[in-house]
């Protein structure tokens, strides 16, 4: 117990003294994960809309695949991506292994199903007459899509936050395709894994604290969003 307090204290000192090593790690985490969520979100929204509003033969199959993808462990994504990106693999010529780009790709794969499933749910919960009303009032189909999405925006925001929450904390994919290289591909979760395995609990706790604060903040925003979404309909 003593050690826990001691480590926590040193963790706070590290954080608030602006320790550059620490903040560099935090910066890498945000750079990678923000990029990933920015890429995954429009694609997920578009796919969710198409699935909610059009009828085609493979619809049920797509839903099943996406729902299953929610249970994909990050390390499986990481391993598959490593095999693809390795110099000895099919996409080796892209030279993407052990770069932040590879980490972003892995996180896009992890975020997409989650954002897709949740936004699909939100769009389906919305009323179909919204779409028809928009069209009949003269909106072009693209504009009508944006209107429909805006009407369920709270559910969509919740989906994005959930997706971001998942990827900013994942270690399996980042470790595999990023390589946990110091100053380069070491983000919060991979750093925590490294530091705790070295017994450097202070650093581990400091980083864990950042992650917890982030997760907590996200959860509060999520709850507020969802409550407002409930009232607004």
């Amino acid at each position, binding site marked *: 117990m003593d050690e826990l307090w001691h480590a926590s204290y040193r963790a706070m000192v590290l954080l608030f003294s602006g320790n550059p090593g620490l903040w560099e790690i935090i910066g*890498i985490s945000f*750079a990678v994960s923000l990029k990933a969520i920015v890429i995954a979100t429009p694609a997920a929204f578009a796919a969710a809309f198409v699935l909610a509003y059009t009828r085609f033969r493979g619809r049920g199959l797509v839903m099943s695949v996406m729902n299953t993808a929610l249970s994909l462990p990050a390390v499986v994504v990481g391993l598959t991506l490593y095999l693809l990106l390795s110099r000895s693999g099919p996409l080796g010529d892209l030279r993407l292994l052990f770069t932040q780009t590879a980490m972003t790709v892995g996180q896009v794969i992890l975020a997409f199903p989650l954002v897709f499933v949740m936004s699909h749910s939100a769009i389906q919960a919305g009323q179909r007459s919204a779409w028809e009303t928009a069209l009949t009032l003269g909106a072009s189909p693209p504009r009508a899509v944006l209107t429909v999405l805006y009407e369920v925006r709270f559910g969509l925001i919740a989906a994005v936050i959930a997706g971001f929450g998942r990827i900013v904390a994942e270690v399996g994919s980042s470790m595999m395709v990023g390589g946990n290289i110091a100053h380069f591909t070491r983000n919060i979760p991979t750093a925590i894994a490294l530091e705790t395995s070295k017994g450097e609990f202070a650093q581990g706790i400091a980083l864990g604290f950042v992650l917890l604060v982030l997760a907590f903040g996200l959860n509060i925003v999520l709850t507020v969003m969802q409550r407002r979404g409930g009232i607004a309909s």
Partner: protein
Amino acid sequence: MRKFVTLLLGIALALSVSAADAATPLRLATTTSTDNSGLLDVLLPQFKKATGISVHVIAVGTGKALRLGANGDVDVLLVHAPPAEMKYMHGGNGVNRRKVMYNDFVIVGPASDPAGIKGGKDAVKAFEAIAKHQATFVSRGDDSGTNKKELILWRDAHIKPQGKWYRAAGQGMGKVLQIAGELHAYTLTDRGTWLAYQDKVPLKILVQGDDRLFNPYHVIAVNPNKYPDVDYTGAMQFIAWLTSVPGQHAIRDYRLHGKQLFHPTAITKH
């Protein structure tokens, strides 16, 4: 809404630019224990000063490091598992293998020492005793250099370690020491990691000094014939520097917790 999204994208881009790297760095695969010893944190800046080359260190288990070399995902290896290395070389995966340094392994365990091996100089006899007493032993179980060394010792003792007393952890050395500490068990560890952990775990060195506990390090360049676009010149510069006088002296002078950890072997006369 649009403003908010633009702001977010701006932040993302700013962060990403700041974390990018300029020139193509040299990729070194090494073991976690080597990385954890802190030696590279001292060597690499000196190497950069001498040659201007930045090095990206990917620290994984020995098995994985060799795999990365075989797949052409790194440019140079620094590992310490000679039998596995020979196999690697025979597979045509590496060139210019050079010895760099050595450190040693030690057998640690609880102060109570139920198997009675304390003070011994024979690692194989110690393992025999541990198996005989069925004293808890924690193994790396991860195909690392340490793991391979451990398995060779069991083989030399003509023992196949199995049963409740033999725990394969599948973790790094630091974790394994922590586990051994918790379980009051024996384990085989490299001296570097031991020095870093001796104050953190309730274990003691019980057996050391056996030639069989010798842990030699080699540096190997990834075969440019197999992967033409690997940074071969960079790898050779790294090998050159490591085996040069300044490099060898830097290795010799490295201290962990006040003790010398690595002994240079590339150049005989210092």
